[in-house]
């Protein structure tokens, strides 16, 4: 059965220490329900990383969305995307006719600095933070492929520029290359402005079978994979093989090639992440992804605009909500709703989310979704 996104909703993203998690979730869900139009929700799939147990039930209680299957999922930063993936397959296989996917996170109530590494994990116990993990990918790229500091910083400059017209983004002030490079060093060579912020927020989508509504966006494919071992046999930096193999399957299921994608939202938790991911998605050859942002290819107006919402670096990264926030942006793009950041004639869109953090494997999970709207 073909699957469509009927409606999407999000909160604004940023630090909302005084707003309860359930209120954030309600705002996103209500917006998605109104966007989708009338119809009973038959199941809900809810992604969060640091939310309380029963996060979905807590989030949906005051909306009366109870008495249905509510499934809570965790897959690190890909938790919201995993919830969407499960929602997609529940429609695709005919189990339900209309379901809700929800992602939510309230990081300011859990952390006042960087996310603490998991101490039951070998690398976490040694103090390896996620910025440092990504920094080592950047260092490897600089040594092996000639990636430059300015190419890294160009990713932030582009995504900040994109976010400047996104009223729900956490950071809307454009920055220069010099500002990015002169911001405090977090993990060499990544500076503060090359790292995603601590964010709160929620995002939701309503999915269902075909109903011939012109605003519905078709899901051409949705693929979830977890990483293989990442060890001394791995020739590529952390996560690259996982994104690549997930993308190959997503393209095959959707019947498209990378060249056909008009707009993308990808996992730029750190600048190097966008560069490595775009290579893995086939938008650049290995080692050449650094040229994309620098040359304008991935900017609005370029041939392959990437992260028009501002990405994780500028829109914000409320972990469990991120995948559905990305999805909401692409659905808006494929509907032609995104005003000054609209990609003209966007017909095919892609969402990629990467979750990581377990030592020795090439990523906890990667989810890639390919969507199609009517040509504008």
């Amino acid at each position, binding site marked *: 059965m073909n699957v469509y996104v009927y409606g999407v909703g999000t909160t604004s993203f940023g630090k909302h220490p005084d707003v309860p998690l359930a209120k954030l979730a309600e705002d996103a869900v209500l917006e998605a329900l109104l966007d989708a139009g009338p119809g009973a929700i038959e199941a809900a799939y809810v992604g969060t990383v640091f939310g309380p147990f029963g996060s979905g039930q807590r989030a949906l209680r005051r909306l009366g969305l109870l008495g249905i299957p509510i499934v809570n999922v965790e897959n690190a930063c890909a938790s919201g995307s995993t919830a969407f993936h499960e929602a997609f397959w529940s429609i695709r296989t005919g189990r339900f006719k209309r379901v809700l996917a929800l992602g939510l996170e309230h990081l300011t109530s859990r952390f006042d*600095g*960087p996310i*603490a*590494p998991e*101490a*039951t*994990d*070998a*690398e*976490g*116990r*040694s*103090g*390896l*933070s996620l*910025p*440092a993990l990504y*920094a*080592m*990918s950047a*260092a*490897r790229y*600089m*040594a*092996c492929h000639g990636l430059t500091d300015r190419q890294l910083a160009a990713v932030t400059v582009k995504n900040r520029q994109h976010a400047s017209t996104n009223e729900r983004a956490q950071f809307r002030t454009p920055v220069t290359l010099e500002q990015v490079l002169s911001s*405090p*060093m*977090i*993990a*060499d*060579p990544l500076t503060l402005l090359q790292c995603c912020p601590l964010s709160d927020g929620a995002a939701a989508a309503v999915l269902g079978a075909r109903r011939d509504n012109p605003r519905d966006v078709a899901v051409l494919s949705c693929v979830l994979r977890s990483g293989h*071992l990442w*060890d*001394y046999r*791995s020739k590529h*930096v952390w996560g690259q093989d996982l994104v690549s193999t997930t993308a190959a399957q997503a393209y095959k299921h959707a019947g498209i090639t990378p060249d056909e994608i008009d707009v993308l939202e990808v996992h730029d938790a750190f600048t190097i992440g966008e560069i490595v991911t775009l290579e893995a998605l086939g938008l650049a050859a290995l080692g050449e992804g650094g040229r994309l942002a620098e040359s304008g290819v991935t900017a609005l107006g370029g041939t392959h605009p990437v992260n028009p919402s501002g990405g994780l670096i500028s829109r914000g990264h409320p972990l469990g909500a991120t995948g559905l926030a990305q999805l909401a942006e692409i659905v808006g793009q494929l509907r032609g709703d995104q005003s000054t950041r609209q990609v003209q004639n966007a017909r095919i869109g892609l969402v990629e989310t990467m979750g990581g953090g377990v*030592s*020795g494997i090439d990523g906890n999970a990667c989810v890639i979704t390919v969507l199609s709207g009517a040509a504008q």
Partner: protein
Amino acid sequence: MTDHPADPRPRVTASNHSVAIAGTRCGSCGYCCLDDSVLCMACGSTLSPACFSPEGTIWAGTVQRIEVNGRIPPMILAYIDLDEGPRLLAHVTGKVTAPQVGARARLVGTTKEGDPLAEVIC
């Protein structure tokens, strides 16, 4: 209840000026790892205990300049591919700069917090 009942970090031993690191090697496919796994993570066969020599090559390195889990920055970190197989994350002694990709390194023991500790040797 303890927060962290077992130390998951690689087991580095230092005695008589000799440093080694304990792990396992697969008798079937030869896969080497530093976990005390029951079965080979690559092929599922049985494993034998192994002891790896301390020298290797830097895969990548960084200087972590933020405090996490009470660890005081800066921390010099590197992935090192040991000559006899496993890749491990180690802290690195010496000046506060990211260890260079491709440089040779040698495990010298553990930090006072119990992390594998290496030095760059050329």
